[in-house]
C-alpha cells in the first residue's frame, strides 16, 4: 500500500492475493466438510434416531391475557371464550363458493367477507383466518353436522377481549387488535416471535399497548405426536402457558364516570392526580368511543364515523391536545416571580386596565382596571395587567427556565403513549420552530402575552395537572402513572409501582404558602367562589379562559360560532392544607373557566372528598356505591 509500485509488482501481488483467496475458500469448505462428516458419519446414529422420533410437533398454547381493573376492582378489560369459524385460504379450492356454502349454515355478513379479504391481503396464505367470530350455539351445531363438506374450514374456541365498561375510560384502557405488519416488525425486533406464535391480537392503544409485555403472558407449548401424514394423533407433554399479569390501576372508575357525565356532550379533558404519589385518579377525554369496535377489525362505517367526526373522539385530548393555559398559568408565574426575587408578595401595582408596550395596547379584561393589585389580588381577581408587567420584568428566558422546571413543555413520562410535548415558548424554541429568519426573532411584545398564558403557550391538560400536583406536593414532582400495581395471575403476588419522585423543585415554604393562600382565595372570594359555594373542604384553585385563535377555528365549517368560543380551564387541589387530589379541567369552547370548567371540578371534589355523587348519578346508584370514594374524611 505504501509507495508506488510498477504494474508488474501490482500484478504479482494481485495473483498472490488470488492464491490466498483460493486457499481460504478451500479451508472454509474443508471446515464445512468436517462439520458434515461429524453430523452425518460420527453422529449419524444419534440424528437418525432423532429423525425417527421426530414425530413430535410443537403446538403453541396461547396464554390468557391479563385483566385491567380500577383501584376498586371494577373490571375494564376481560376475556371470554367463544367459537370462531376459520378458513385456511390455501387449503380451500374455491374460496367464494366455500363462503357461499357456509353462509347457508351460519350468518355471514358482507362486512365479514370484507374483513376476510383484508386479512388475506395482510397475511400469509397458510394461516387460518376468521370468517365469523362469536358463533351462536345453534350455528356451532349446524356447522359441526356438516363439517365434512368443508375441508380447510375449522371451528376454534378462542378467547375474545371484552371491554365491559364500553366508552368509559376508553382512551386510557385503549384496545387490542389483530397483529399487522408493523406489529410483527416490532415483535421481531424484540425477538419475541416465539412468544407470539399462536397469538393473533396485540395491544394497539392505551394501556393495552404500553403494558403489552405484562398483559400478554408467556406462550406455552404442547408436544403433539403426529402420524406420517403430519396430523396430530395424541398430546404427549404440555408446558402450560403463563397467563398475562393483571393491571390494577390507580384510576377510580366511579370518579372517571362522574367526570364523563359532568361533561355532558361538551368536549374536553380532565386529569386528576394524587399529589405525593403521581397516581392518576381520573384521565378523561371526551367525547370517547367504544374500544370493543376495534378488537376484530373496525367496520368501515364505524371507522368513518369516528375518524371523520368534527368532535375527534379518537384523539386523547388529555395527553395529545395542547391548549393555551390562559390564567391558570398565573399562579405558576407568580411563584416563579417569588423564586427569582422579581416580586415580593406585598409589592403592589396600580392597574389602569391596560399595559402599553412597544406601541401595543394590552388590555385587561376588566375595563378601568383592578386598582391597587398585590400578588394575592392578582391571582384571586385574575388581573392581567399585573402579569403583563411581571412577564416584561422577568423576561422570556427566565420565565421559560422556571416554568420548564414545573414540566411545562416536556413530556411527563406517563405510562401510556401518545403524549405531546406542548410548547414552552422561548427564543430558542422559536428559532427551531420557524424556518425564515424574520420569523425566528423573538419580539419583546410576545413576552407580554406569555404572562397571561396566551401567545405561543400550549400545554396538555396532563401537563397542567402534573404541574398542579407538583405545586400541591410542595414542589416534589412524581412521575404520573395509571397502573398502581401489577398482579401476577399465577400466584396473586403484587408488584407495586412505587411512586417515583423525579425531582424536588426548591421552593421556600413561605412562597408556597403565598400562592396556596391566593389560590384558596380564588374559591372563597374570587373567580371560583360561585362554583365552590358551600364546599365543606378547603380548595385551592385557579380559573382560566384561553382564546381560540380564529385561524384554528377556521377549519371547522359546522357550528362555527360555537367552535370559536374560548376554551374554559380550571386547576385545583384539595384539601388545600393537605392535598389528596390535584386536577386540571379543560372544556373546549366552554367560554369562561369559572362558568363551565370549575363546576366539573366541584363535582369531582365532592365525590372524591365527600363521596357525594352528582344528582343525576345518585338516583341510579344505591348508597353503597358512595362509600367507595376514599380520602373522604380528610
Amino acid at each position, binding site marked *: 500500500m505504501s509507495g508506488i509500485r510498477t504494474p508488474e509488482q501490482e500484478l504479482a501481488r494481485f495473483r498472490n492475493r488470488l492464491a490466498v483467496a483460493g486457499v481460504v475458500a478451500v479451508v472454509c469448505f474443508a471446515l464445512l466438510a468436517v462439520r458434515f462428516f461429524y453430523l452425518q*458419519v460420527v453422529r449419524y446414529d444419534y*440424528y*437418525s434416531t432423532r*429423525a425417527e422420533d421426530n414425530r413430535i410437533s410443537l403446538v403453541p398454547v396461547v396464554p390468557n391475557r391479563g385483566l385491567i381493573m380500577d383501584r376498586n376492582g371494577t373490571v375494564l378489560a376481560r376475556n371470554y371464550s367463544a367459537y370462531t369459524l376459520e378458513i385456511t385460504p390455501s387449503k380451500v379450492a374455491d374460496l367464494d363458493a366455500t363462503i357461499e356454502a357456509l353462509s347457508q349454515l351460519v350468518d355471514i355478513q358482507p362486512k365479514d367477507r370484507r374483513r376476510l379479504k383484508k386479512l388475506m391481503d395482510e397475511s400469509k396464505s397458510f394461516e387460518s383466518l376468521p370468517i365469523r367470530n362469536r358463533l351462536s350455539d345453534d350455528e356451532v351445531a349446524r356447522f359441526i353436522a356438516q363439517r365434512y363438506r368443508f375441508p380447510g374450514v375449522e371451528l376454534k374456541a378462542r378467547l375474545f377481549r371484552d371491554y365491559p365498561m364500553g366508552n368509559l375510560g376508553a382512551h386510557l384502557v385503549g384496545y387490542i387488535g389483530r397483529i399487522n405488519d408493523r406489529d410483527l416488525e416490532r415483535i421481531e425486533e424484540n425477538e419475541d416471535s416465539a412468544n407470539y406464535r399462536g397469538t393473533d391480537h396485540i395491544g394497539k392503544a392505551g394501556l393495552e399497548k404500553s403494558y403489552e409485555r405484562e398483559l400478554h403472558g408467556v406462550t406455552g407449548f404442547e408436544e403433539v405426536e403426529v402420524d406420517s401424514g403430519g396430523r396430530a394423533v395424541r398430546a404427549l407433554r404440555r408446558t402450560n402457558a403463563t397467563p398475562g399479569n393483571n393491571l390494577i390501576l390507580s384510576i377510580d372508575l366511579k370518579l372517571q364516570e362522574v367526570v364523563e357525565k359532568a361533561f355532558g356532550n361538551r368536549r374536553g379533558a380532565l386529569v386528576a392526580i394524587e399529589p405525593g404519589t403521581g397516581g392518576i385518579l381520573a384521565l378523561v377525554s371526551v367525547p370517547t368511543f367504544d374500544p370493543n369496535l376495534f378488537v376484530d377489525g373496525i367496520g368501515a362505517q364505524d371507522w368513518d364515523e369516528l375518524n371523520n367526526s368534527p368532535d375527534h373522539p379518537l384523539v386523547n385530548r388529555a395527553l395529545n391536545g395542547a391548549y393555551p393555559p390562559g390564567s391558570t398559568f398565573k399562579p405558576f408565574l407568580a411563584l416563579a416571580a417569588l423564586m427569582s426575587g422579581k416580586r415580593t408578595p406585598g409589592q403592589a401595582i396600580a392597574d389602569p386596565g391596560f399595559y402599553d408596550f412597544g406601541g401595543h395596547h394590552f388590555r385587561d379584561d376588566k375595563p378601568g382596571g383592578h386598582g391597587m393589585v398585590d400578588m394575592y389580588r392578582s391571582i384571586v381577581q385574575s388581573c392581567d395587567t399585573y402579569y403583563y408587567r411581571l412577564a416584561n420584568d422577568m423576561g422570556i428566558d427566565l420565565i421559560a427556565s422556571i416554568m420548564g422546571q414545573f414540566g411545562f413543555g416536556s413530556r411527563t413520562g406517563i405510562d401510556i403513549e401518545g403524549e405531546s410535548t406542548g410548547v414552552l415558548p422561548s427564543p430558542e424554541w422559536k428559532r427551531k420552530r420557524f424556518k425564515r429568519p424574520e420569523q425566528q426573532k423573538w419580539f419583546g411584545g410576545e413576552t407580554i402575552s406569555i404572562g397571561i398564558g396566551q401567545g405561543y403557550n400550549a400545554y396538555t391538560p396532563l401537563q397542567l395537572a402534573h404541574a398542579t400536583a407538583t405545586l400541591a406536593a410542595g414542589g416534589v414532582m412524581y412521575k404520573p402513572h395509571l397502573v398502581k400495581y401489577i398482579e401476577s395471575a399465577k400466584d396473586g403476588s403484587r408488584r407495586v409501582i412505587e411512586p417515583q419522585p423525579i425531582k424536588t423543585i426548591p421552593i421556600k415554604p413561605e412562597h408556597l404558602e403565598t400562592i396556596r393562600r391566593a389560590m384558596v382565595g380564588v374559591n372563597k372570594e374570587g373567580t371560583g367562589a360561585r362554583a365552590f359555594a358551600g364546599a365543606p373542604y378547603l380548595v385551592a384553585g385557579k380559573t382560566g379562559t384561553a382564546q381560540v385563535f380564529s385561524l384554528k377555528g377556521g377549519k371547522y365549517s359546522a357550528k362555527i360560532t360555537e367552535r370559536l368560543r374560548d376554551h374554559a380551564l380550571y386547576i385545583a387541589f384539595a384539601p388545600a392544607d393537605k392535598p389528596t387530589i390535584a386536577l386540571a379541567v379543560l372544556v373546549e369552547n366552554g367560554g369562561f373557566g369559572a362558568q363551565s370548567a370549575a363546576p366539573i371540578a366541584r363535582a369531582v371534589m365532592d365525590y372524591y372528598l365527600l363521596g357525594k355523587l352528582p344528582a343525576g348519578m345518585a338516583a341510579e346508584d344505591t348508597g353503597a356505591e358512595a362509600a367507595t370514594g376514599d380520602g373522604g374524611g380528610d
Partner: protein
Amino acid sequence: MVAVTDFRFSLRKWLMSFLSPLDGPLALIVLAILSFSTVVMVSASPERLDTLAMNIGVAFVVMWTAARIPPQRMMSVALPLYVLGVLLLIGVALFGDVSKGARRWLNIGVARIQPSELMKIAMPLMLAWYFQSREGMLRVRDFFVAAALLLVPVGLIAKQPDLGTAILVAAAGFYVLFFAGLTWRLILPVALVGIVGIGAIVAMGDTICQPDVVWPGLRDYQKHRVCTLLDPTSDPLGKGFHIIQSTIAIGSGGVTGKGWGRGTQTHLDFLPERHTDFIFAVLTEEFGLAGALLLAVLYILLIFRGLFIAAGAPTLFSRLLAGALTLIFFTYAFVNMGMVSGILPVVGVPLPFVSYGGTALVTLCLGVGMLMSIQRHRRRVGT
C-alpha cells in the same frame, strides 16, 4: 441430402455463434448446479417447478446478455448504477413497503423492487471502477474513500433490517479492497481479534448466556441470537427450532442419504423454509454426505474458474471485479451451508443457484455473465 447436411451445418454454426459469448467451463458448472437444484426442488416444492423454469430462463438471458457486454461498458455504468442504488436505498428507507417485518421493497408504480439486491453487483463494480481510476497513483487515502463508499449502502441495508444482504454487500466491497492491496497489517489483526473473540464466546457459552448477564454494547435480542446458536434448545419455538431441525435433517441423511423424495424431515413439515434458505438441509437429508460433497466440489470448481479468470484479466478494473464476484459466490455458499449446519448464525442468505428465488438467481447469473465477459474480452483490451 445435400440440403439436409447444409441445414445441420448451419444449425451447428448458429448454435456455436449463439453460445460463443459464454465461457464453457463456467456454463457447465452453473448448469450442473442448477440441475442438482431442480432435482432437489422436485422433492422440496414440486408446485414451484413452473416458476423455477421461468426463473432459470430469465437468468440465462441475463447471463448471456451480460457476457456480451465488454468490460469497458460495465465501467461506464459503474458510477451511475451505484448512485442509483444508493438513491433507491434512501427511497426504501423513506417510503419503502414493509413485508414480513422489514422495509426492503420500493414500489415504483409498475413493480416492486428490492434495491439492496442491485447493490450486490453495483458495489464491486463501483469500487473496481474507483480503483481503476486511481491506478498508478493509489494512496492510503483511497482506501478510506473506498471504505466510505462501501459503508453508506451497507448501513442503509442493515437498517432495513436485512442483515444477510448487508453482510453480502459488505463482503463484496471488502473483496475489492482486499484485491486492490489493502495492507495485511490491517487485515490480520482484525481477523485475529475476530477469531479469538468468537473462540472465547463459544468456550464460555454456558456462563455468559445466563439470563442475568448483560453484554456490554449489545441489545438483549442480539445476545439472544448468539446464545440460540450456541444452544439451540434454549429457544425451541423460535429460531432455535430451525437450527435443531436442519441439523437433524443433515445428520440423519448419513453418507448416502435417505433417497430422493424420502426425507422425513422435509416431508413431515419439520424443516422451515425448505425451498429457500434451508434447501441445503433437504439436499443433504435425501442425498447424504455424498450429495453435500458433490455440491461443495461444484462450488469449489466455480470459485477456481473465477479466480483463474481474474488472474488472466487484462485491466485492474476487470481483475478486481472478477476476483470480488468470485468470492461473493464463495461467501453465499459458505454462509448458507454454515448456517444450515449450525456453525454460523441464521441470517437470510440463499444457497447460490439452488435456493428458490428469482431475484437472487438473476443477480448471481448476472455476476457469472460478467465473469464470462471478462474472460471473453481478455485479449482485445489492455496492455
